[in-house]
């Protein structure tokens, strides 16, 4: 016990204890809440009503009681089910705090709840629907064609290898390395935040599938050299060498130069 008493005064112990306590409480809560039964499949009308209820609870403070939009959020009339599904399933909506951009985070709704909200917003005015499994099937798509289309239409913001990049005033194009085919399809279809819209007329389904196949190929590609550094290419690699490796070389030079005791 003397060993423990001695250690208790170390500054890291408080942080470790706090972390442990949070883990126990959070883990316990997650274990309990996971036991709640999943919402059973709902009929279309009840689904829309459930969606409206969820909308009024979680979204209406910014988007307005009738989804007409307020100063804090745009109108959702006509944005379609695909837009709602993308924004909520990736955790971008509801936003945690106002800011230049809504970042992706852990989503707080179940799939059924997201589909219900999508159904309600879709019932307000026609808009892009959630893509079907058939539209998302990219198994026959041409990866090379997808690469060409990606470089013409997407690479300017998301970077040629899908690593993402900066826009104006703190906004950014996110990395595509964890995006699912459905998220990619929905983002192209609806133009979330400042992304332009690439509808099925300007970018037909076959071309979207090719782009998804290319991004999937990028996601699967290993990084044989080790640290990919965001796959941003020689500038970043050079910067890494100049900072990290030079620091190591200077540390080695200092060690060589210090007189032995």
């Amino acid at each position, binding site marked *: 016990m003397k060993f423990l008493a001695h250690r208790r005064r170390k500054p890291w112990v408080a942080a470790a204890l706090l972390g442990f306590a949070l883990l126990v409480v959070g883990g316990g809560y997650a274990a309990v809440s996971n036991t709640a039964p999943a919402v059973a499949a709902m009929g279309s009308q009840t689904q829309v009503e459930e969606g409206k209820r969820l909308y009024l609870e979680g979204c209406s403070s910014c988007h307005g009681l009738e989804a007409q939009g307020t100063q804090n959020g745009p109108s959702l009339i006509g944005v379609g089910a695909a837009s709602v599904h993308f924004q909520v399933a990736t955790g971008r909506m509801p936003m945690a705090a106002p800011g230049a951009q809504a970042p992706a985070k852990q989503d707080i709704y179940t799939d059924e709840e997201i589909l219900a909200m999508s159904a309600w917003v879709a019932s307000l005015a026609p808009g892009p629907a959630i893509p079907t499994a058939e539209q998302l099937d990219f198994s026959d798509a041409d990866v090379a*064609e997808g690469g*060409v*289309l990606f470089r*013409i*239409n997407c690479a*300017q*913001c998301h970077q040629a290898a899908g690593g993402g*990049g900066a*826009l*104006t*005033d703190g*906004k950014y*194009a996110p990395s595509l390395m964890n995006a699912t085919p459905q998220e990619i399809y929905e983002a192209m279809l609806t*133009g979330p*935040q*400042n*992304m*332009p*819209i*690439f*509808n099925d*007329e*300007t970018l037909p389904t076959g*071309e979207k599938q090719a782009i998804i196949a290319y991004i999937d190929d990028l996601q699967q590609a*290993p*990084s*044989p*050299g*080790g*640290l*990919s550094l965001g796959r941003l290419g020689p500038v970043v690699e050079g910067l890494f060498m100049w900072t990290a490796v030079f620091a190591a070389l200077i540390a080695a030079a200092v*060690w*060589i130069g210090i*007189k*032995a*005791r």
Partner: protein
Amino acid sequence: MSSRSDKDLLPVNPEPGDPKPGYLPVANIEHKPRVTDTDPKAARRAERQVAGMFLLSMFFVVLFVVAYVSIDVYATVYVPVLGVVGASNLALGLTFGAAIFFIGAGAIQWAKKLMPDVEVVQERHEMTSAKDETDEAAATYERGKEESGFARYPIIRRTLLGALALFPIPLVVMLRDLWQSPAGANPAEILSRTEWREGMRIVPDIGHDTGDGVEGMVPAEIPVGGLVSALPYAIKETKDDPAANFRERGKAAIILVRMDPTEIRSQQGEGWDYQGILAYSKICTHVGCPIALYEHRTHHLLCPCHQSTFDLADSGNVIFGPAARRMPQLPIGVDEEGFLVARSDFQEPVGPSFWERG
């Protein structure tokens, strides 16, 4: 004034006073002995450390060979922080790096802990050459001047200077190629016109074949908030000539954006949009990067190279960054078949500024 002597490389005289032959004189400052100088046990420990490092180096060399033989070149492995990496490259790099590192580290440790570290005096030589050497060089120069008769034959001297002065002229004349192309056209004119002309259809840019069978675009295809990279229909004629294709692409590439017509604050000509569809050059007016970073809510177009930002709702004016000119706009309309067409060429040269443009 002797040259560098071998004594620089010989061992140090460990005793104060006059150095033994072949040893450097010890500096006249207080020397603090190391632990390894006074404690034989510490010296033994340092000896084992150095030998241990050399042994580790051998171990990693063996490990390198084993890794080279046994790890599949295409195998991958997950490493925290690094992610999924090639197992072979990682293992080869680490073992080879460790092998050479421990040779160096052992050598440094050896030198620091066990080799003599007393402070010694090492004389340096003067930087200037010896007086007799400089005198000889000056005499050689004088003799050359005298024997060549450079001062005695003024006509030879002047014609030689004239020949040397004229010699660079061919190099200057060839610079003319920079502004006069072989075809005879002035590059300023070439830069000032593109393939766009009245009635030229707009086709989406979908790669090198530029869309066989694509006849054009109708306005209804482009949604509000949409963005399309596009080219003139005439680009199809350069399909089999990659050089010409790239040349025309570099000038004629445009982006089409569509916004709510009420959001358009100004444009570069009255009625240059078509129902909210605006066509702008895709080439930055700063140093010519292709740009399509269009934010459809702010209508800003951002160049990734130097952060020049253009407001497409306001004539493409520069609102930030080093670009000096607004983004050239292309006046567009529709033809009788309903396809989007240009109504003329650009009214100003696209891309970066050049000398004749001012």
